[in-house]
């Protein structure tokens, strides 16, 4: 239609005194037209299996919650940063999710249908995460999205999935204080990673703490909780430092740490900064025997980038290690290596991404549909033998029960478990169970 009218205009102009610069405007018109034609084409392709529906209807349908596909595949969105600074962490999670989808498809799919991953790049940019999530839900009508890493990316997607009544499986440990009805959190809540780690440290390593973190929401919120906890336990906080994301020179911070000489550094640094911090810490003559560092964002994959010799002997707190001894893990590690090479390592967020796909698939099977509300209902209490042990979805807050494991980095880059909780711990994102966290959780109570 539009193309036609554009041509007609062109001819009309030609009849008049046609100035060449008119063409200039036609160029713009052409660009805009082609933009729209291209978009419509993409839209049509996206809705190919619903030919009788118009665009508007498809979208409204989606908002109402019926994203049921009538074809023989079910589309699921995969939304991680494949470019930009966060790609260093997120690509592996994406690979794990694709592996799970592949395995599910090989075993007959879900509801007899194959899963069709729709991959998008969040580009380490939070508005882009929002845009792509919107695209996945509105254009592609995906049944669920697996994605995100940083809290910021989750916060960006949250209003989009809530608005469109979509689903998001978020695979990374985070600071808590959130429970969206449209998000399943397969990573650890603070009480499944940080709180037990602090307890363990107090019992086993000493009571003077130095808190070091990158300057963003997870470390600041996590440290607020840690401080409350330490105060309640009567432990001492000798220092608290935040460095900008991507900070590379830790000399000054290390000088401050050395002058305070704490028993423990509780490390919530993110990504690249960990590499710089540990390398420079070692160069400054601080080893795990002098001051022990417990990290909550350093897993096997990060250790590869840091160098095992540098971080050897320091501690981590997670729910899963590559060395975790379960039958499911043995299979998972083997499959992961078969898919991505002998050098590939698994880690907690990778595993959380992996079993997230299975949890969703199980919920869909149980619900008998991909319809979001029904899947959510069916998901309550679902269990799965994940590589880290048995995980159960908590119906109250859509987080999962997980076992906590404190580990020590070995010279081969693997982490050996020093301690694990007796059972899978119930997720408590708002730390309501803890007396010392009353101020924190109350300030958020709505």
């Amino acid at each position, binding site marked *: 239609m*539009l193309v036609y009218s554009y041509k007609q*205009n062109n001819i009309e*102009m030609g009849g008049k005194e046609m*100035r*060449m610069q*008119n*063409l*200039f*405007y*036609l*160029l*713009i*018109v052409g*660009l*805009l037209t082609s*933009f*729209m034609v*291209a*978009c419509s084409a*993409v*839209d049509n392709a996206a809705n190919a299996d619903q030919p009788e529906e118009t*665009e*508007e209807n*498809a*979208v409204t349908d989606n908002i109402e919650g019926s994203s049921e596909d009538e074809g023989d595949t079910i589309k699921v969105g995969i939304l991680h940063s*494949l*470019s930009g600074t966060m790609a260093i962490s997120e690509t592996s999670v994406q690979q794990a999710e694709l592996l799970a989808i592949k395995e599910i498809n090989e075993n007959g799919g879900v509801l007899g249908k194959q899963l069709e991953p729709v*991959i*998008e*790049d969040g*580009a*380490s*940019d*939070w*508005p882009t995460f*929002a*845009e792509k999530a*919107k*695209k996945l839900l509105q*254009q592609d009508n995906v049944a669920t999205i697996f994605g995100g890493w*940083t809290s*910021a990316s989750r*916060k*960006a997607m949250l*209003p*989009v999935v809530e*608005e469109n009544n979509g689903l998001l499986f978020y695979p990374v440990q985070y*600071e808590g*204080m959130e429970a969206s009805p449209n998000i399943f959190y397969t990573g650890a809540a603070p009480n499944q990673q940080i709180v037990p780690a602090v307890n363990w440290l107090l019992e086993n390593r000493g009571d003077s703490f130095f808190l070091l973190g990158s*300057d*963003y*929401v997870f470390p*600041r*919120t996590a440290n*607020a909780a840690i401080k409350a906890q330490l105060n309640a336990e009567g432990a001492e906080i000798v220092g608290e430092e*935040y460095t*900008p*994301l991507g900070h590379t020179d830790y000399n000054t911070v290390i000088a401050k740490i050395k002058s305070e000489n704490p028993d423990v550094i509780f490390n919530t640094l993110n990504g690249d900064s960990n590499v710089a911090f540990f390398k420079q810490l070692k160069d400054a003559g601080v080893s795990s025997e002098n001051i022990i560092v417990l990290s909550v964002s350093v897993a096997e994959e990060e250790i590869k980038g840091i160098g095992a010799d540098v971080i050897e002997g320091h501690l981590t707190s997670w729910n899963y290690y590559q060395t975790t001894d379960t039958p499911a893990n043995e299979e998972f590690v083997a499959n992961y290596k078969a898919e991505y090479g002998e050098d590939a390592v698994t880690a907690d967020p990778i595993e959380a991404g992996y079993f997230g796909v299975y949890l969703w698939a199980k919920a869909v099977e149980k619900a008998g549909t991909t319809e979001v509300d029904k899947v959510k209902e069916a998901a309550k209490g679902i269990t799965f033998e994940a590589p880290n042990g048995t995980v159960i979805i908590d119906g109250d807050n859509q987080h999962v029960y997980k076992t906590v494991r404190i580990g020590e980095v070995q010279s081969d880059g693997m982490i050996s478990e020093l301690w694990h909780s007796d059972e899978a711990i119930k997720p408590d994102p708002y730390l309501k169970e803890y007396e010392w966290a009353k101020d924190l959780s109350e*300030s*958020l109570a709505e």
Partner: protein
Amino acid sequence: MQNTIYQKLLSNKVIFSLIFLILLVAPMLLSDFRLNLLGKFLAFAILAIGLDLLWGGYTGGVLSLGHGIYFGLGAYCMAMYLKLEATGGAIPDFMAWSGMSELPLIWIPFQYPILAILLGVIIPAVVAFFLGYLTFRNRISGVYFTILSQALVIVVVTLFIGSQNLTGGTSGLTNFETLFGFHINASSTQTAFYWITVFILGAVFFFSRMLVKGRFGKVLIGIRDGENRMRFLGYNPSAYKTFIYTLSAAIAGLAGMLFVLQVGIISPTMIGIIPSIEMVLWVALGGGRGTLIGPIIGAVFVNTAKTGFSESYPEYWTYFLGILFVLVVVFLPNGLTGLFEKWNERRKNKNVSNSIRVEKSVS
């Protein structure tokens, strides 16, 4: 009498209204999602016009790699109001877990929508005025100004991330609900935002055009081509530069507000070094110095390409975009519109039967 390229280019009102016609019928043709994207691109186009005033066509040499700040300031002003409306006057969640119990002073004006919108233009303008006044008065120009503007970006971004209790830190501000009582994500509201964006784009375009069409525009070109000469004609170029810089910052703030309304989130990633350079790329790729329409094309084109590539090839899109940038910059020094002008020029020269032969000066 006035006979420079850009005025000729704008002479045809028919074609011009056609573009706006297309923009106006777009809501009927596009899905909500695509319309929303187009609206976002048009918000970027508004910013690009401001940048073109500063760099592309006028007061040349003033290349700001810091316009992300002004875009961000406008966006944050809008977002702060939206956030407060979403929480119903209570303090936002990120403040609560940063240990604050009362709304901080700088948030108070943003409870009032009209004030928030005004500040969204005024704050970027004031910041730009001070920076512009100082730098241009000291005759810092060219590369130094450019690098300086980058330093400022780092300062602002680091501060925004660092003051998490005030700005939401890296996560920025998101999860809005209503504007003037209208549900912000409703299809009808979004379509309305799209129309508002189109209208503001038109208004900014015509205002800018009016501004540069007259004698004022010639003074700007004079400053671009010979700043010192202008001094000896009795002009004070720093005042003009400061004015245009301030104006373009205000326009960027406007664009930022429209961005937030349509995208529903603002975070420091949108105001950092990378987006700031990207903004300049829109103008450069659009080209057509001083046409004011070039940057609109550039903004829509680059962002369409980016979205298109990344949707079709999520793992390789950066290659395509990178190659596109290199090709356009190297082979089309005047951008996409430059391509057209060149062709236009050639055709015109063939037809020229005037007695005076005009040689195009080397620009």
